[in-house]
């Protein structure tokens, strides 16, 4: 065992000299940017669609009942499907229907589908954190729904929405590792590539781990800072089961 360890150490040193060269750095940096780009596009669009979804979910009236039900069904379903399964579902659907989308696009679509559901819930909770009496008061003064949202609700809700939405985004940087399974050339795929070239797993995947950490940790810190800055009053009795809520809500070590 001890002998073996020394051998590995030798191999490691030998490979390192070959591995840490400029070309590989460029390759890895590109892969890292792909990871970041698809997370930004996916979660950014997810935020916009999330707002739309919440708007429909909160539109009153019998006429909108089917729309509300569709939206609720959407949100509750896609928060309960593994990202990996959704990725393959989207990929095979796109291919089955003969659409010519790049793998990157397929990954982005999958992220949007999931993040819309999750961020939609985050936004909804943010709006709910603004007390109903604020709506009533605006109603009594003849504000329209949009005017109330614009002048009263959103200025209060964004502080509650932003920290968890950002935390979700940071969490998804890591989840995009799964897109390597449909062949997107991002950070994890780059690790696999080097591992397949014969580089030690400790070296290839170890480097990739460090790069993920470099992407994720500063943003995690930024998220904590944001949370402290906005010192949002979070609902105390958040006892409901919000699928995955805990995963992106952890903060402050």
């Amino acid at each position, binding site marked *: 065992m001890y002998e073996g360890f020394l051998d590995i150490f030798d191999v490691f040193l030998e490979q390192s000299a070959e591995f840490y060269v400029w070309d590989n750095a460029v390759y890895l940096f590109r892969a890292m940017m792909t990871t970041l780009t698809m997370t930004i596009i996916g979660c950014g669009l997810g935020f916009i669609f999330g707002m739309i979804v919440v708007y429909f979910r909160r539109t009153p009236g019998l006429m909108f009942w089917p729309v509300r039900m569709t939206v609720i069904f959407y949100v*509750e379903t896609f928060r309960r499907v593994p990202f990996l399964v959704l990725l*393959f579902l989207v990929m095979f659907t796109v291919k089955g229907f003969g659409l010519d989308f790049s793998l990157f696009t397929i990954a982005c679509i999958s992220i949007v589908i999931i993040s819309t559901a999750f961020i939609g819930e985050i936004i909804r909770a943010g709006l709910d954190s603004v007390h109903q009496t604020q709506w009533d008061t605006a109603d009594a003064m003849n504000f329209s729904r949009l005017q109330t949202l614009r002048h009263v609700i959103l200025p209060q809700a964004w502080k509650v929405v932003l920290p968890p939405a950002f935390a979700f985004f940071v969490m998804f940087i890591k989840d995009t590792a799964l897109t*390597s399974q449909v062949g997107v050339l991002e950070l994890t795929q780059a*690790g696999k590539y080097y591992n397949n070239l014969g580089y030690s*797993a400790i070296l290839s*995947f170890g480097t990739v781990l460090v790069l993920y950490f470099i992407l994720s940790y500063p943003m995690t810190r930024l998220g904590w800072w944001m949370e402290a800055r906005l010192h949002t009053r979070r609902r105390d009795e958040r006892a409901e089961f919000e699928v*995955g*809520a805990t995963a992106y809500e*952890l903060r402050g070590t």
Partner: protein
Amino acid sequence: MNYTFQWGEAFIEVPYLLGGAWITLHLSFIGFWSGATIGLFGALGKTYGGPVTVKLINWYVIFFTNTPGLVTAFFIFFGLPEFGILLSPYHTILLNIALNSGAYMTEIMRGGFVSVHKTELEAAETMGFTLLQQLRYVIVPHIAKVLFAPLSNWYIWMILGTAMAAIFGVEELTGRVFNRAAETFRSIELYTIAAGMYVAITILASSILVVIGRWAFRVKVKVF
């Protein structure tokens, strides 16, 4: 549209997939409790440990919460054999799940520990509770109540997370879909069915947890 759905062919596979769903539950259950054990010690260490212990635990937590589970899995899966340690895919993935969720659960549980306020304990002390009685009547019930909802959420999240095991050849729900999709080419149908099963499993699990929560801890929780 040049794809013809053939649901019939896909539905034949349902019993096989359900077998996979069972393994999914199994995997998430064992993973959860291993993670919970690590989390418990992590939280205890972080709350009551010395500065070195706290630092070490912090590094562990920060590392695993800022790196993808898939890559740590690759690291273990391909890295350990380089040291001559051979684990089956199932055990590799289990080890990875335990380490990963142990980090998250350290944080969750520490939140529970921190929430026991000094004042409550002082109140108990003034009423003449011994330490054991404090544990029995104040501390443990309080922590259980506070932790029930976040840990339940975490379990549900883990059920979805175990899909990753398929990548390493574990034949849980997603792994079995991988197998059949390659053989039958009814991919869209099979993945849709699997997605539906995940929805069903998690709703079922949430519902059971709601009942347990209300009955055992008097925690008010909702499925949706």
